[in-house]
């Protein structure tokens, strides 16, 4: 029984992390119609800035608060200076641009921080393990479960229950109509891109104590995030949640019960879902 509980928690913790990354990817696609290859690098940037904040202040908590806005501002700046000018073009231009940005950012981080991975310790409150009826489980992983859920609900409520969320959804549905009705589409796009990057940055800070901050972590996570978004439905926050749970479970349970086929399972699940719902579980049919 403890065994099953442990596997359940492992899947939830990974899902929490995946959600923080994939939510932004999904938002950017839903509203900007851009597949953002640079998204993983903002996640990596979050982890490295998290390391710097912890090194400077000696505290983990400030990093969670300070880093996401920093990454968000950088993202918004990049959107308004580069991406903005090629929305009208074919998707291949956006792919090339975001891929180029990813390479530039990744190598800049390497030059600044050097090749050695940077370890970040969890805050004292989250070090060690909780005793869950005989099962000792790391506190930090439980924190990831809580963080993923909290952010997920907050983003969902924001999009569904606030006026700003309404405008964003309007732009997503039909940006020309939203423009005619007085929404500042360019500004919405910049803000959404920035917010998505901030979410990725938050994911990076949260991941650092579990995986350390290292070069290549962005590329590694973006593949999983794409699977999450495809499974859950592009542009849907609830879909990202569902997708994260499915991918998290497929990876952790696959590695535990069927190790030789762990990687295949994730893609097999994605394939099956695509056959029956090509627009993803909670995406909207176009």
């Amino acid at each position, binding site marked *: 029984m403890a065994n099953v509980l442990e596997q359940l928690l492992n899947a939830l913790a990974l899902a929490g992390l995946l959600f923080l990354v994939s939510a932004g990817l999904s938002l950017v696609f839903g509203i900007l119609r851009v597949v953002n290859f640079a998204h993983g690098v903002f996640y990596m940037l979050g982890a490295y800035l998290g390391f710097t904040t912890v090194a400077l202040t000696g505290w983990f908590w400030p990093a969670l608060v300070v880093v996401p806005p920093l990454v968000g501002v950088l993202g918004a700046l990049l959107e308004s200076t580069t991406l903005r000018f090629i929305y009208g073009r074919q998707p291949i231009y956006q792919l090339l641009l975001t891929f180029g940005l990813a390479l530039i950012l990744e190598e800049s981080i390497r030059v600044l921080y050097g090749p*050695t991975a940077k370890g970040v310790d969890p805050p004292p409150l989250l070090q060690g393990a909780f005793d869950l009826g005989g099962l000792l489980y790391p506190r930090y992983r439980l924190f990831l479960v809580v963080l993923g859920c909290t952010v997920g609900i907050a983003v969902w409520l924001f999009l569904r229950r606030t006026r700003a969320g309404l405008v964003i959804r309007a732009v997503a549905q039909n940006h020309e109509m939203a423009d005619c009705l007085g929404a500042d589409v360019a500004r919405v796009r910049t803000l959404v891109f920035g917010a998505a990057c901030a979410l990725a940055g938050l994911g990076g800070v949260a991941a650092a104590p579990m995986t350390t901050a290292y070069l*290549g972590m962005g590329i590694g996570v973006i593949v999983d995030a794409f699977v999450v978004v495809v499974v859950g439905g592009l542009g849907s926050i609830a879909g990202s949640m569902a997708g994260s749970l499915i991918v998290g479970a497929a990876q952790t349970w696959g590695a535990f019960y069927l190790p030789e086929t762990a990687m295949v399972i994730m893609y097999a699940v994605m394939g099956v879902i695509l056959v029956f719902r090509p627009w993803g579980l909670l995406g909207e049919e176009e």
Partner: protein
Amino acid sequence: MNRRRFLALSAASLATPAFVRRAWAQGPIRIGMPAALSGAYAQYGIQARRAADLFAKDIKAKGILGRPVEFIFEDTAGDPATAVRKAQKLVEKDGVKFLTGVALSSEALAVSAKCPEWKVIFMSTINGAGTLTTKSFHRYFFRVNTSGPMGARAISLYLAESPMKRFFALGSDYAWGRDSAASFTQQITVAKKDVVGTDYPPVGTKDFASYIAKIRQSRAEGVYLALPGQDATIYMKQAHQFGLSREVKPIMEILELENMKAVGDAMVGAIGSSRYPFTVDTPKNKDFVRRFHELHGVYPDMFDGETYEGLEWLAQVIAKAGTDDVEKVIDAWEDSGYEGLEGPFFMRKCDHQAVQPGFAVECVKDPKYPHPIPKILATYAGDKVTPKCRTEDFS
């Protein structure tokens, strides 16, 4: 960088006596380094470059055969196809006769395969894959470093003496990880101990929770880890958070400084083999470590040491051959000896694998250093840890 170095060399040549200038008129001896300087494996390429920087500084005054030495770096980003392309450029455009600094075994296999055609020497100082000196061996390939199977051998010899009886093997799902896990299993079984479980996580795994749960369930006393750099770092972090490292001793095929720096105290207590522990107590090594630290501000990791040894040995061999002619250098290198940083080296003619000491080390804390360091537990003579010629057989 290259241009500046070239200009400095040109300026120096104007100020030197005529007889030296004649030797220099033959042009520099060029060593090509198609190394992974960016991307996920950059730490290995950067180690090769750090070693080359120190060696270039040491050799600057006298050169080799009175000729200056010039290093040309190319970035492969850790990709075998790029490595071949960059190596080809170095050979055909820059005219290098010696290639080294290749980081990954996959790159090395690809580049090495081309060397008989190019007629240039490939000197491995990093690449572990056993096949390089067995199935894929050819006359133009030399391995100065300890190979993967040799590392597995050193730690197996150490474990054979230890009270631990039950082991779990965790190897990355590619050639090196699978080879190492198999090699370890075979040798530990010979020592009448058990491998109670084996798993192959994919390269780039970021969550080891499932594997950690399985290792705990297996009730192993030690877990043998053949995970490349970053994967090992992540595993050690997470095993510590799950409290697994207190119950199951981590045993690493290569115990790197890079991991110790990134993981910190959570790494203390891990044991493993080291191809070059910078804590080796020889006068030559102490001098090297001091000068390396002066130049780079960090302590040398495994491939810093091994690459430096390779370059120094190569320079000695060229001097002995009296020429940089590739065929003559090969003849001079075969069956020759060299006093390395950690002890005596011998280049076997039969498979061009350098026979050298093997080490079992433990990660310990030492207040003199800013990070945990490898403490040497046991040293094994070269003939104990080097396999029979062109095999991976140690019996």
